């Protein structure tokens, strides 16, 4: 049973470019959340997708957008990249939207913006 998978593993972009990160949830999971983890910090919640809609959003600008597909996989898009967007981007999946459901995290995508 595969866990949460993310691609790519690493990515280098320059300021002003756009990036798309991908996530496949753990088998049986239908809800995907995205987090940004800056170096030396805890993860920060970006948004959550359920039933192909954004259900919750953290304090991130509109440059951050996402999508969920019918197979529950998800994409995170970041436009007009800034140096401060350099971070580890984590995807987490679970079944349903109850707060008691454990979120399972993927290995992350390391984004470097030059």
């Amino acid at each position, binding site marked *: 049973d595969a866990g949460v998978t993310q691609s790519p593993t690493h990515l280098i972009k320059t300021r002003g470019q756009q990036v798309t990160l991908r996530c496949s949830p753990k088998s049986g999971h239908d809800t995907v*959340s995205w987090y940004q983890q800056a170096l030396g910090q805890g993860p920060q*919640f970006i948004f959550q997708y359920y039933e192909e809609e954004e259900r*919750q959003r953290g304090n991130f600008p509109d440059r951050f957008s996402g999508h969920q597909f019918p197979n529950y996989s998800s994409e995170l898009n970041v436009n007009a990249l800034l140096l401060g967007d350099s971070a580890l981007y*984590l995807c987490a999946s679970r079944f349903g939207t109850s*707060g*008691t459901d454990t*979120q399972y*995290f993927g290995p992350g995508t390391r984004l470097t913006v030059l």
Partner: protein
Amino acid sequence: AQSVSQHNHHVILSEAASLELGCNYSYGGTVNLFWYVQYPGQHLQLLLKYFSGDPLVKGIKGFEAEFIKSKFSFNLRKPSVQWSDTAEYFCAVNHRLYNQGGKLIFGQGTELSVKP
């Protein structure tokens, strides 16, 4: 504002020493509490979680945590650490309301180094 505070940024212990990592939260409403661990080169994994009932919860690998509602705390403990416990530990909280549980708020993490 909702926040989670972990008291120690870096803790260094010798093997067999006892461990206690502090976590305090500021969050309106009823919450669920979690401790996650990130071993070197690995992804975040759940150590334990508290939703309701007995405030002393046991997790994997001999870890336990106690929820003290009056102190808004959820401290992680282990009686005797091993070198393999070297990792970064994150305390997290979310809201118990249905459909509001996606947003986990994490503390800044505590790096634990265990000397053999």
